């Protein structure tokens, strides 16, 4: 039987931190560590999860955990994995939790290097779509149209002008043993993917969408619901890449739910016009054409 909420470990490994109410990122870290267990060596770069979890003397990880440099999540994981293996220690999981900026911007070079070496590590990107720890600045995973403190929505420019970087596809293009997208809106799927990744040797990458009430302008109790809605309206997708068998789509909504409804319930998108929403709908359709062309059978 696969892992699910009923079989999930009861122990807590990320507990007593000071994340914002309704934080999606802390949920992703907490659940992943429950799947991976006490012999996890967690690396967290500068970012929300390290800022809320590592304040001496209040240290919130029950497993081994360390903050890395901002750019150095993957390279520190490499050193930890190699250092343990060199000492004959085998039964462990080196796992990184980095945000969207820490992954797709400043940490991309080190991540690419680790995948290239096929280091036996699991890298989890919790994507809340901006530099939230520093107070909501645009990253390369901020979606088109989003208002951030560095992409203000005014008369001349209405928020962020660039689409999200295609991190899953970029990672998969390395020929990585395993990569997946996930969402905290589908925790069973996320848990299964973390569990599956932990059994694969070599580099693994999971990109989990984790809404941020503070940065997205939603209520703390809407985090999971908004994450689900992103899947239903087609602005995020659940997929896997496995070396040898290529990409697989895990979920295809029968008909897409309203993009406008998803956008307009979030403060960061409230300024968008009908034309802006048309652009987002169109880019969603273009993306899904590519997804359906490139990705295999729905499981």
């Amino acid at each position: 039987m696969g892992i699910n909420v009923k079989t999930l470990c009861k122990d807590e490994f990320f507990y007593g931190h000071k994340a914002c109410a309704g934080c999606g990122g802390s949920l992703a870290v907490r659940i992943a560590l429950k799947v991976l267990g006490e012999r996890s060596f967690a690396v967290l770069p500068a970012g929300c999860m390290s800022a809320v979890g590592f304040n001496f003397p209040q240290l919130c990880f029950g497993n081994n955990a360390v903050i890395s440099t901002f750019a150095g999540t993957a390279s520190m994981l490499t050193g930890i994995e190699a250092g343990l293996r060199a000492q004959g220690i085998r039964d462990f999981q080196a796992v990184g939790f980095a945000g969207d900026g820490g992954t797709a911007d400043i940490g991309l070079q080190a991540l690419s290097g680790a995948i290239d070496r096929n280091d036996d590590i699991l890298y989890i990107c919790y994507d809340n779509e901006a530099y939230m720890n520093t107070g909501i600045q645009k990253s390369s995973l901020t979606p088109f149209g989003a208002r951030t403190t560095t992409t203000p929505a005014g008369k001349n420019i209405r928020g962020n002008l660039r689409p999200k970087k295609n991190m899953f596809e970029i990672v998969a293009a390395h020929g990585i043993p395993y990569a997946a997208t996930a969402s905290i809106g589908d925790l069973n799927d996320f848990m299964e993917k973390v569990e599956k990744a932990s059994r694969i040797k070599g580099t693994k990458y999971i990109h989990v969408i984790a809404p941020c009430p503070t940065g997205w302008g939603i209520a703390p109790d809407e985090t999971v619901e908004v994450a689900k809605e992103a899947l239903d309206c087609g602005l995020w997708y659940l997929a896997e890449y496995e070396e040898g068998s290529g990409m697989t789509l895990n979920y295809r909504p029968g008909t897409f739910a309203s993009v406008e409804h998803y956008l307009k319930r979030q403060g960061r998108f409230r300024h968008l016009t009908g034309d802006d929403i048309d652009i987002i709908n169109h880019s969603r359709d273009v993306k899904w054409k590519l997804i359906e062309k490139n990705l295999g059978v729905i499981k």
Partner: protein
Amino acid sequence: MARKFLSGNEAFAEGIRLAGPRVISAYPITPQTIVVERLSEMVEEGSLSAEFIHVESEHSALSCAIGASAVGARAFTATSSQGLLYMAECLTYASGGRFPIVMMNANRSTALPWNIYGDQRDSISLLDSGWIQCYVENAQEALDLALMSYYIAEKKEVSTPFMVNLDGFVLTHTYEVTDVPEKEQADAFLPGYETENKLDPDHPRNLGFSVGPEHNIAFKYKEHLGILHAKEAVREAEERFAQIFGRQYTGLVEAYRTEDASFVLITLGSIAGLVRETVDRLRERGEKVGLLRIRYPRPFPNKEIAEVLGNVRAAAVLEKDISFGNEGTVFSNVNSALHKAGIPVPVSGYIGGLGGRNISSEEIEGIFADLKSEKRKTMFLGLGGEGEWV
């Protein structure tokens, strides 16, 4: 023991083989590259059992070494110049985390203008990063420091990373006859690395955490005490080294013919060899001159410098670095040592050898000649600039 004809880089690689790091993160940069090439060959042939990691940058090289050290594995990396600057963020990370990594730096000029030749601005500009820094003079000392550096860095009360500096090309690429000890001797000298400051599968820990304004300064004070403890560890390492290998070293500084000297030239690195020759030649002419080689600018040998310069008439610092807008950094440090000791010796500051420019024996003689005026002077060797600095 075998006698081999080795370059500085090769000698250092032999020393690292003998020290036996468990993880090596490797990235090429001239003039360091030969070190990681030799180490990769040693791993291939089986004379060194280490995880050899081909990192994609110097930042990752040191970040990877920090990860390995954070789980209690002896770690090594090497770099130079731009690479050292690129990994600068990780330098303070390693020292603040008290991870006793050893890194070899091939001293090289920093851009702009681009230049691959030797000066010491790269490492001297990072004196404040919390690393022990040693500057060696020849291939034998390089090999020996590869062993001693781990012994010193890993002492529990030290727990501080260690940068061994070799002058680019002049030392890294110059071949000398070098004694290469047997592995059994090296093992007798250097115990395995044991620490509690690590992530441990059986005793989980949180490391690399944040410390707020209330407690932060206490961590920094402890870090400072750690690198100061290296002074005693250097002495202990050299005693132990002499017992096992029969080679003597002289601690944080090496004083040459200074006992009765009136004029002393202070420098560091490979140029000390030429200064020593020049001192011998001037001594033959009856001139009372001497050399003070700073082997370790961190921890800084305040006491040792004051002892040597206590009775001289004048001294000069010759260094391959400059703190732009002020003066040579070693010059500043030496003046501070003398001021604290209440020694009013006039000290002159000479900047030389930047970008690999040759320093001649005649120029060194010229410095000694200048000292006879017993006036303070600061200048760029061969260029002048005198009097414009104050």
